[in-house]
């Protein structure tokens, strides 16, 4: 298993899209932090309130959707260039390949999340400094938001692997996942918040401490995300193990 882990890590590091998505995730983290700060600039708002701190820093997870894309590419991309045949020739027990990708993309998601959190923190720190304020790093509103953003990114990395394992065609998987996360879930939540707050993407908003009404408590949101990821992963594992690799 350690050989497979090292090989998968080499594969991820050698694939250019990994680095482009990392840069984009960090950039979205910066924009996601700047946007709410610019929106309240010049207004009588207490930037040091927990609400404003969370409003600024939760943007660190704005690029989590790109971690989802990275996970999908990492798994479903194997089918695009015939790499999957080579992967299963090296490791005919396919569950090992999926398990290794799960571990690696949990790590990739964490790295992306940390990078985005660092970029968001630096951005917020600079903004506060420009306003003669100090970002209060000792406040739970800061570090719980940042930890939540990293956790969301890590879980989205694994969710991407699971979606990729179920769909196994990168383009439909990416388009479908983006449409669901960015369009369908927010629309459903807007229509009936108390019903659709259980959806995984909406639950992730709570975990990243986005200040909004009707969201689940963070603990329940984490449980929802973990259950969705686990169910999708088991489904993907079974399909990958069962289905023929025909080309």
């Amino acid at each position, binding site marked *: 298993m350690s*050989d*497979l882990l*090292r*090989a*998968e890590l*080499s*594969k991820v590091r*050698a*694939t*250019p*899209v990994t680095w482009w998505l990392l840069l984009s995730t960090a950039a979205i983290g910066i924009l996601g932090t700047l946007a709410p700060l610019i929106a309240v600039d010049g207004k009588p708002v207490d930037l040091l309130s927990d609400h404003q701190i969370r409003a600024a820093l939760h943007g660190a997870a704005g690029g989590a959707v790109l971690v989802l894309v990275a996970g999908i590419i990492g798994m479903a*991309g194997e089918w695009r*260039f*015939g*790499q*999957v*045949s*080579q*992967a*299963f*020739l*090296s*490791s*005919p*027990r396919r569950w090992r390949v999926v398990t290794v990708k799960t571990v690696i993309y949990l790590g990739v998601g964490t790295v992306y999340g940390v990078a985005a959190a660092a970029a968001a923190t630096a951005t917020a720190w600079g903004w506060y400094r420009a306003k003669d304020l100090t970002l209060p790093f000792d406040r739970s509103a800061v570090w719980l938001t940042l930890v939540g953003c990293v956790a969301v990114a890590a879980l989205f990395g694994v969710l991407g692997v699971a979606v990729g394992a179920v769909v196994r065609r990168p383009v439909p998987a990416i388009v479908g996942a983006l449409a669901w996360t960015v369009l369908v879930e927010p629309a459903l939540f807007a229509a009936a918040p108390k019903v659709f707050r259980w959806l995984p993407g909406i639950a992730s908003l709570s975990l990243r401490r986005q200040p909004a009404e009707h969201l689940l408590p963070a603990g329940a949101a984490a449980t929802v995300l973990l259950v969705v990821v686990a169910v999708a992963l088991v489904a993907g594992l079974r399909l990958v193990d069962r289905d*023929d*690799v*025909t*080309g």
Partner: protein
Amino acid sequence: MVVNMSSRTGTIDCRAVSKVFDHRTVVDDVSFHVPAGTITGFVGANGAGKTTTMRMLLGLVAPSAGTAWVNGRPYRDLKQPRREVGAVVDGPGAHPGHSARTHLMIMATSAGLPRRRVDEVLDLVELTEHAHRRVDGFSMGMLQRLALAGALLGDPGILILDEPVNGLDPPGILWVRDLLRRLAKEGRALLVSSHLLSELAEVAHRVVIIDRGRLVADTTLDDLLADKSHVVELRCADPASLLQALRARKINVTVEGDALMIEGMSAREAGETAAAVGAGPVYWLTERASSFEDVYFRLAGSMTRESPARTDPVVAS
């Protein structure tokens, strides 16, 4: 070029293997054995079931019935599969953004193989000077060499190669031919599919022919060619009437363009028959020894030659 290859051996066995995709039988009760130290040509038209059979041997496709084993076990049960079996299926399976060396390094790492093997196989397939180039800039021939390098990475005793000369230029084909012979001499078992029948005739010791999923021949090349000694090629003004007359006499005849390829009668007999049925002036009449292709088309039929009646499998030890 210094390449140290160990002399490994292995065997391949298909026993009554079948595969059904969505109620469509793609491989139907196929059995054959590839002994160590031989090259077995695997021949069939597109869609005949060659690739599916090879994928069943490699554990990529699950048989619907029967067994497809390598070294006496299913591929999935091999402890170190890359050290026992090398395969070319569907190209090198490399990410286009990776270099050849990175691709092979990832393969070697995942299989627990020493890194030095990467340089050795790059040298063997003569890709060393392109090792750091991205794969998306490779020609078809270079991709085939890279695929072969991947197959040879574990120095395996069994090689299952699906169309390994596809896309290679003539020097590349010669190079593959020499490589295959050398590998077989070292005791390895090679199953090689190709649509270039003449190419397989150059290197194969044995031939397995399948047609529409069914085995039609599993024999040595010598036995296959000894089966029929001559073929008559005839072109005339009315080939349809001659074809009808020959078929009525149970003569084995296939159509290739405007020519009839006739087996089991002499050129003189064929010419006299054409005259007797009024098939018009004969433009071309020649008799030659049956080639591998003639026998193949007789046994398997094809898209390019008119299919003859189905025959029982030709099986020899």
